[in-house]
């Protein structure tokens, strides 16, 4: 069942056609899905005190109802290590179209970047996608699809289907990703998507950063059904 907060978020986003990232992260967090520590700020001072609570380094992202693809317009500043750097980033983001504030987030360590997605297929209903993440996913198209809801065994077979699966299993001495955690995240996400059928058109969680025992959703784009 979607909570009252989630319904309110979705209702409020309908006219725009997509959910602002802080609202999307709030919904994912309430579902039990791992997101970075985050907070929103409308002023520089607010941003700095949020950053102190989270701890540097942080990421700052523009919050604007006019900007879906943030990185395309320079709407993301990463690896901010000081108040001065945060002030500078804030000033720059404040100049972007429709600026409402910034999303201040914990800077995640490096890891394997995955895309976890969902779409509502006309014939089959909710579908889950897993692939190697980043901005080049549509070039390599190394992805696996399954109908939601997923069973744990589905996650295992999805990973096995990826050409990039050696990268997930610890390629050339790298640390393997935590399969149990990835499974938990995907199964939980797939159940959440079942609840969202009727509301959404598609979701990109991209990237989902897997390092150590964590798989954290660094960015979330929730496109709503027309």
């Amino acid at each position: 069942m979607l909570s009252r907060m989630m319904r309110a978020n979705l209702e409020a986003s309908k006219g725009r056609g997509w959910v602002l990232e802080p609202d999307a992260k709030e919904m994912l967090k309430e579902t039990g899905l791992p997101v970075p520590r985050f907070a929103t700020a409308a002023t520089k001072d607010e941003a700095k005190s949020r950053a102190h609570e989270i701890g540097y380094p942080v990421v700052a992202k523009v919050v604007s109802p006019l900007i879906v693809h943030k990185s395309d317009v320079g709407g993301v500043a990463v690896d901010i290590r000081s108040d001065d750097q945060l002030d500078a980033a804030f000033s720059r983001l404040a100049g972007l179209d429709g600026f409402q504030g910034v999303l201040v987030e914990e800077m995640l360590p490096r890891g394997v970047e995955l895309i976890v997605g969902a779409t509502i297929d006309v014939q089959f209903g909710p579908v889950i996608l897993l692939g190697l993440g980043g901005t080049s996913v549509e070039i390599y198209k190394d992805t696996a699809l399954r109908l939601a809801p997923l069973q744990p065994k589905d996650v295992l077979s999805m990973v096995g289907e990826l050409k990039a699966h050696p990268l997930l299993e610890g390629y050339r001495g790298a640390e393997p990703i935590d399969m149990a955690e990835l499974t938990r995240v995907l199964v939980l996400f797939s159940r959440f998507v079942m609840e969202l059928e009727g509301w959404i058109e598609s979701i990109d969680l991209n990237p989902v950063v897997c390092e150590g025992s964590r798989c954290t959703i660094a960015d979330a784009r929730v496109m709503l059904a027309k």
Partner: protein
Amino acid sequence: MRRQTLNERALERYRALFEPKSMAVIGVSTHNDRHPANVIFNKNRLHYPLEVYAVNPSKGRLQGEPVYASVSEIPGKVDLAVIVVRAEQVRKVLVDCIEAHVGAGVIISGGFAEVGRSDLQEEIAAVAREADFPFLGPNCIGMFSPPYVDTNFIANERIVRPNPGNIALVCQSGGILIDLMIKLTGEGTGLSRAVSIGNKVLIREPDLLDYFVDDDRTRVIAFYVEGFGRGEGRTFLEAAARCSKPIVVLKSGKSPLGTTAVSSHTASLAGDYRVFSEALAQYGVVEAKNETELVNFCESLSRYRAPIKGNVGIVTGSGGHGVMAVDFCSALGLSVPALPVEAQGALRSLISPSIQAIASLKNPFDLTGSATDEDFAAAVAYLWSRPEIDCVIALLLPYLPGISMDLGARLSFVAKQMDKMLVAYVPHVEKYQILTEGFELNGVPVADSVEGAVLMAEAVRRWGRC
């Protein structure tokens, strides 16, 4: 006892449809023998054991039998109505059938949604739903349900007579249905039912899937699907998950008609056909990529159900055929394990002295052009004795001088005796018919190409994997 998927009421309606004792053909002509309704009337009257009644408002006589003005005037009970009237008249005929307590219908008539008359289609759907009256179509060719009834409006002399068998075939397209019936018959397999569902207003793929699960005469269920309606794909797969029989699906219309701008990576990557294909695999449905695959998969799955891992042993009289088979196997992910040297030695002592020095026995076994029936029988039996092999492909080249036409039957009996999976390739020409039928009539599938034989092994492996 196995749980029945359908309730008694639903089964009764399907019995009226597929096993009718009486049938009304509505829309016969008293002056045009080639009218589809007349073809249906004629073939059922002559070749099927049911009562057949002709109906047309203008009455008269047809082949010495009375033509009834409406279905309500027929003296006996009518299980099935075949409706071949103009689209505008179908609703009225349907109401008559419901009032006369007819059990089920087949609406052959076209002129509905396929030509933009969704309104007429909605009307007949509403009438039938209200009365819980099942029908196939409209805009379909009907169904073939031996030995009970055949509502296809193709005259018998125009189609090969399909064998009764254990494959149920369901097609949206009537043309594809007839074509596949011909091809499956050509491969020596047979059909339990062949159904064209046309515009599938009422009876759709998931309904038939649920019915065929409990149909004792059906072992394999094959579908040709152009597309599913909203959410219907999921309903189909939920029915598939309840089904213990192999399901084979051929999807047409794989390429997107137009690309619409999509705002997310996921929406762009999860195209219609890709979702279709992956969802089928997730639920253990065997997808045939084309007609050749469909025919080979059906033939193989109608004979074999015991799962295999896909470790193939290949016996051939020609090195080239063996290499081609290995290539096809590896392209599909079937393995062709090499046998250890001592095993090769053991087999070498079992084959004719004349080929002992020249045969290659590593797997594939190339017995050479000098091999005899005895050598093939020994090699096939030996492969089955090996734990690393669970399926044997015999590539038989009937023009080799040492091979007789009896080899098909002979190898089939060995396969049956050992309860092992054997598939064969024999060139499909009339000259070698005895060899081919020696296999097929004794329960071993035969492909008309090396690739086809490999596909037969692949079908059983894929089915076993889910």
